[in-house]
């Protein structure tokens, strides 16, 4: 299974390299193909980092930044890794914009996160087979739970568990050492699990029992 995933990754990377090369020579169709092929992946990342309310804007800014920066992309990392870096920066910009809003609007956003998530899932139900109610609740809780993490932890766990990036790749995306990535992922997962279990004290109790 692992080797199958690796070979898929390699094939995608090869195709991306070909399209990037064409796009850098001015082939707009190659640019369009690249953007379309990676839109869903980038949207998913933005959705989990900034929430459903701002995911569209963050994704749009990410695509624009990719279109603008493609000429200078040097290929040292894969296109996927580079695009994640661009997208995480776009997410940070969206979060900063959000932080400038009034506290009243922020409170409204919190309830909007749950509401929007519920609406999106309702739309999905219309076009997909019925979804288990508990899973719908899980979706809402995940969006809310992720906001309880710091931005750094949120990005690390999403890049790992949703995007499937290695620690090395995440380190490149976030521009931090792999050791920092490792601890952010661990703390993020731990905090999330304890949040969902309804016992935020659990992680601190466990910490004290460890040698």
């Amino acid at each position: 299974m692992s080797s199958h995933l690796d070979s898929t990754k390699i094939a995608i990377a090869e195709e991306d390299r070909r399209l990037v090369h064409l796009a850098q020579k001015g082939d707009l169709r190659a640019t369009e193909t690249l953007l379309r092929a990676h839109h869903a992946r980038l949207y998913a990342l933005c959705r989990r980092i900034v929430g459903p309310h701002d995911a569209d804007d963050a994704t749009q800014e990410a695509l624009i930044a990719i279109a603008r920066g493609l000429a200078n992309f040097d290929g040292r990392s894969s296109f996927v890794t580079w695009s994640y870096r661009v997208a995480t920066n776009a997410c940070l910009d969206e979060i900063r914009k959000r932080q400038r809003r009034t506290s009243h609007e922020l409170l409204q956003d919190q309830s909007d996160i749950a509401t929007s998530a519920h609406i999106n899932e309702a739309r999905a139900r219309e076009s997909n087979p019925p979804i288990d109610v508990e899973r719908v609740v899980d979706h809402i809780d995940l969006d809310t739970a992720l906001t309880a993490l710091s931005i750094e932890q949120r990005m690390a766990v999403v890049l790992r568990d949703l995007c499937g990036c290695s620690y090395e790749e995440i380190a490149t995306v976030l521009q931090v050492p792999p050791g920092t990535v490792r601890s952010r992922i661990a703390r993020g997962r731990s905090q999330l699990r304890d949040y969902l279990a309804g016992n935020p004290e659990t992680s601190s109790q466990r910490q004290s029992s460890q040698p």
Partner: protein
Amino acid sequence: MTDEHLSDDALSALLDEEENPGVAAVSHDHLESCVMCSSRFAALKDAAQWIGQPVTPVDELAVERAVSRALDVAREELDKHHRSLVQQLARRPAAIATVAAVAATIGIIAPRILSDDTADQQASSRSSASYSTTADDVVEGEFLRLNATSDLREPLRNALDPSRVNDEGGASAVGGEAEVTNESAEEPVPSSPGLNNASESMKAPRRYSANLGDTQKRCEPFARAHEERLGKLRFRAQAVFDDAEAVVMAFDIAPTSSSDANKNPTSQFNLRAYVMSASDCRVLSVQSFAL
């Protein structure tokens, strides 16, 4: 095997197969016998799987919108890059013209300078770089659709001197007074079909997007590098020539001496019209007129 419990950090790295292989082996051994750590390992695994559940993608319309906007930016970046390349090319002819002027001064055209022909002296010593064209001096024509360079006769006449423009024999000049540089050379006389209503066919409803002033500034140095004798710019217009977006520029050319006129019957012409590609300033065609 270790009796020490594993930290969340170690368990998480173990889960992701990112742990050092030696340490991983020991940790796995511990997990087999430690209920607390294996329970915590399972909990972190659940959290990872929960975070990793797929996100419902947006609808196709939203994707279309997002990609279109990004493509608009990509197009702008491409245009900027092309404009920058053309500007770099435009700087080169100016250098060539300067070198040519210096060479002329040193003595490449010394025999002409030494002659009694003062008109030739004026022509040869005149540097193309000495002309500056201001917006006030240049007549701007309407958008033109050209089938042949001779189609310029009427618009130039209307713009510059309705009573005096005469292009007889312009492109068929002996001695190459009017050079045809494009591969699909135009006929010297406007005998092509469909030109009876030349003024109507030349007026096209559309203009291409580039600003005429910018295109002229970009392409004028190329024309001057092509021909040193070009004087003041008198006329400019946007055009389509051979399905290519083009710019038309008509320049004064230095009058020649009477001795030259004997050898070269076309020396009566004193206006040179250049049709150049708007994208890269290639010379598409040249035609002489008498004003």
